C-alpha cells in the first residue's frame, strides 16, 4: 500500500486533485462552525453582489440568503449524495457483475439482459421517473441516483471476473474445497477491485452532477442547501445576477474535477503497466 501511495504522489495532477478534494471536505467540515445559522434562513437584502458587503462576501441570492453559507453547507450535501449514491451503485454493480461473471451460462445471460435493459434507458430519465414516483426527499434522491448508476460498474466487474475466474489460483481454490461465495468474494474480488475503485470516482462525479441537474429542474429536495438548488434559484436572475448560478457552478466544477483527478491518479498508481512511463 505505501508503494501505491508513493506512485500516486508522484503525479502532479493527482496531487492537485487530492488537494482540491481535501479543500471541499474542509469546507463541508467547517460549515457548522463558520456558518452556524441555518443557511436557508433570510440573512439580508436580496441580490447583493459578491465582495460588496463584508458580511456576505459571496453575496446573497434572490431571497436574501447568504450564498457563502449555502456553498459551505452544500458541500456536505454534495459529498454525502456523491458518497452514498456511489456506495449503493458500486455495491449493486459488484454483486451483480461478480455473480454474472463467475457463474456464466444462463445466470450471466439473465443478469446481463437486465443490466442492458437499465442501460438502454437514459439514466437521467429513469431518475426523473423514480423521483416523481417516490418523492423528492434527500434520501429518495440519493437512493434513486445510486439505483440508476449501477449498470456500468456491474459490466466492469463482470469483465474482470471473466478474465480472472479461469486463472489457476481460482482453480487451486476450488481444488482446495472452497465454496463459491468464498471464491467470489475472498479470492477473485480483491483482484478485480482496483479498476472498480477507479471507476467509482467517475460514478461519484456523475452522481453529484445528477443531483445538480435534478435541482436545476427544481425536482430535488428544496429543504436542504444543495448547490443544485442554488443554481436552480439563480436561473430566474441568470441574465443580470449571473453570480447566483455561477458561484455554485464553480463549486460543482471544482468538486467533480477533484474527484476525476483523484480517480485518474488512482488508476495510474494501481495499474502496474503504466508505472514505467
Amino acid at each position, binding site marked *: 500500500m505505501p508503494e501505491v501511495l508513493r506512485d500516486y504522489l508522484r503525479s502532479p495532477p493527482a496531487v492537485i486533485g487530492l488537494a482540491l478534494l481535501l479543500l471541499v471536505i474542509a469546507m463541508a467540515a467547517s460549515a457548522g462552525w463558520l456558518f452556524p445559522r441555518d443557511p436557508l434562513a433570510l440573512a439580508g437584502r436580496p441580490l447583493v453582489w459578491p465582495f460588496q458587503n463584508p458580511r456576505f462576501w459571496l453575496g446573497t441570492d434572490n431571497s436574501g440568503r447568504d450564498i457563502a453559507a449555502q456553498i459551505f453547507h452544500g458541500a456536505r450535501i454534495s459529498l454525502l449524495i456523491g458518497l452514498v449514491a456511489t456506495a449503493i451503485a458500486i455495491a449493486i454493480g459488484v454483486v451483480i457483475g461478480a455473480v454474472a461473471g463467475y457463474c456464466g451460462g444462463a445466470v450471466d445471460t439473465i443478469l446481463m439482459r437486465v443490466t442492458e435493459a437499465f442501460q438502454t434507458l437514459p439514466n437521467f430519465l429513469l431518475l426523473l421517473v423514480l423521483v416523481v414516483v417516490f418523492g423528492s426527499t434527500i434520501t429518495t434522491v440519493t437512493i434513486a441516483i445510486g439505483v440508476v448508476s449501477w449498470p456500468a460498474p456491474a459490466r466492469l466487474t463482470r469483465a474482470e471476473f471473466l478474465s480472472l475466474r479461469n*486463472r*489457476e*489460483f481460482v*482453480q*487451486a*481454490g*476450488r*481444488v*482446495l*474445497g*472452497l*465454496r463459491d461465495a*468464498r471464491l467470489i468474494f475472498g*479470492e477473485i474480488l*480483491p*483482484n478485480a477491485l482496483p479498476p472498480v475503485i477507479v471507476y467509482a470516482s467517475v460514478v461519484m462525479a456523475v452522481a453529484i452532477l445528477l443531483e445538480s441537474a435534478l435541482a436545476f429542474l427544481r425536482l430535488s429536495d428544496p429543504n436542504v442547501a444543495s448547490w443544485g438548488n442554488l443554481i436552480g434559484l439563480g436561473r430566474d436572475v441568470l441574465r443580470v445576477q449571473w453570480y447566483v448560478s455561477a458561484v455554485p457552478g464553480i463549486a460543482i466544477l471544482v468538486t467533480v474535477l477533484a474527484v476525476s483527478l483523484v480517480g485518474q491518479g488512482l488508476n495510474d498508481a494501481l495499474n502496474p503497466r503504466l508505472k*514505467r512511463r
Partner: protein
Amino acid sequence: MSAILTLESLGVRLPPGADRSHALQDVSLAVAANEILCVVGESGSGKSMTAGAIMRLLPRGVAIDGGRVLFEDRDLVRADEAEMRRIRGAGIAMIFQEPMTALNPLRTIGDQIGEMFAIHTDLSKAAIRDRMLGLLEEVRIPDPRLASRAYPHELSGGQRQRAMIAMALALDPKVLIADEPTTALDVTTQAQILALIRDLQRRQGTAVLFITHDFGVVAEIADRVAVMQHGRVVEQGPADAVLDRPQHDYTRQLIAAVPPLAAPPPRALSDTSVLTIEHVSKTYRTGGFLGRGARVTHAVKDVSLRLPKGGTLGVVGESGSGKSTLARCIVRLVDPDAGSVMLEGTDLAGLTRAEMRRQSRHIQMVFQDPFASLNPRRRAGDLVAQGPIVHGTPPARARARARELFALVGLDPASADRFPHEFSGGQRQRIGLARALALEPRILVADEPVSALDVSVQAQVLKLLGELRQRFGLSIIFITHDLRVAAQICDLVAVMKDGEVVERGLVADVFGAPQHPYTRALLASIPGRGFGVARPVATT
C-alpha cells in the same frame, strides 16, 4: 572461415533500479557463414538481449554502452536509424518464439511475405507473387497457394513458424537470428522446424545465431555453442567439446540438470490401486445455433487408467492431446460426460459439488504456471493454511503446520509472511506443492509442474517431488509434455493422442521398446536424443 557477424566486448546497460546494472557485459561472439552458433542460457542470462542489441531493438531505457557489433565491416552500434532499417530484414533477419504475435492477424500470410519484397526491392507484383510462392514451397508448407491466402489464425503453430521463416529468408539475409523459435511448439513439430532451419542454412550458407534454453536442441543443431550466465559468456567452443567436455562449472551444472532420457531402475509397485479411471470422456461443443455449424471436440475419449498405491503415473502427449482435460476431470475442475473415477470406493465423477468439496482433501493438484496459480493478494503462509482451515482445522494450528511445510519443501519458514511476487518461479512452485500437501492428500495430480521452470530449478523441484513422494506415501498423476522429465519421475506412463490413450506401461518398456507408431514418432522427435543417456542418473 571468416566471421560475418562479430560482437566485440558488447555491453548493454539496464535502467537504474533493475536487478543488475548491465544486461550484457563484455560479450564477444562471432558467427561465420554456413554455421549455427547456439547461445544457450537460463532465463535472465541476457541471451535475448544479445539479439535485441544486434538488431538495435532494445526496450526503452536499455542502451548499448560499450563494444562493437561488426556486420560486413560496419559497426552497427554506430549505424544511424536509416542504415539499420536497410540491414534489418535484408542483411540480418530474425524469427521469434511466438509466431502468432509476430504476424499481423489482419493480413494474409502471402501479403505479409510479399511486403518484404515491396519494401526492399523494385520487383513487379507478379514477380513478388512468384517469389512468395517459391519461398512457401521452400519452407515446405503444404499447398503454398492456399497457405498464402490464409490468415495467421487459420494455420497451425508449426505452419505459422514456417511462414515466419519464409519471411525471414525472403531477401537472402547473410545472418538469421532465431530467438527460441521452437519453444512454443510441440516436440514433433519442433523436430521438423529444426530440420528445416538446418537444411535451409546448409543450402544458402546463412550464418545462424540460434538462441535457446534447451540443451537437447543445442545437441541437435549447433556447430558451435556459447553459454551465457548473468549477461556474460562463460564458455564457448565447438558443440561436441562444450557438450561432452564442459570446462566451466556453470555449463557442467546446466548439463547435469538436463534429465537423461533413460529411466532409473524401476521401483516396486503395489498391486492395490488407489485410483481407477474407467471410460472417462469429455466432449466440448462450441458455436452453432440449434445444432447447426457446431464444432465438436472430443477432448478426452474413453480413457481408462489405473494408479497403483504409491506409484507415479505419467500422462504424456502433445498440446491438444487432452492430458490437461483428463487431469481436470479427475479433480472435478471439469465435469466428465461419462465414466467413473474411483478413489477407494467413491466415484468422484458422480459426486455433487458439495460432496466433492469434502473429498477434495484426499486429492490435490499442483498447477503449471507458478505465477498464475498463487493469489497475488494473499500471503504465502495463508495460501498454504487456507485448505486445512476450510476443512475445519483451527487457524492457529493450520498456520503452524504451514510453517512446517515451508521447511519441508525447502523454503524459509520466516518467509511465510511474504506475498507471492516476492518469490522466484521455483520457490513459488514449492509454495504450490506445500499448499497441495497441507491437506495431506493421498493423491497428487501434477499438471506440468516443472514446465515453466529453468532446467536447473526443474531438477531441484523434481528431486523434491521424489522425496515428498517417499515421505508421504503419495500416489501421483504427473501430466507432462516433456518425455525426459517423465522418464525421471514416473513409474508408469500413458501416451495420449487426440484424447485417447494410445500406449501405456512401465516407463522403461514404453520408452525402451515403443509399440505404437505415435509413441515412436514422439521419442524420435526429442531433440538431442542420444545426449545425456550415458550419464549417471541425477534425480531419483
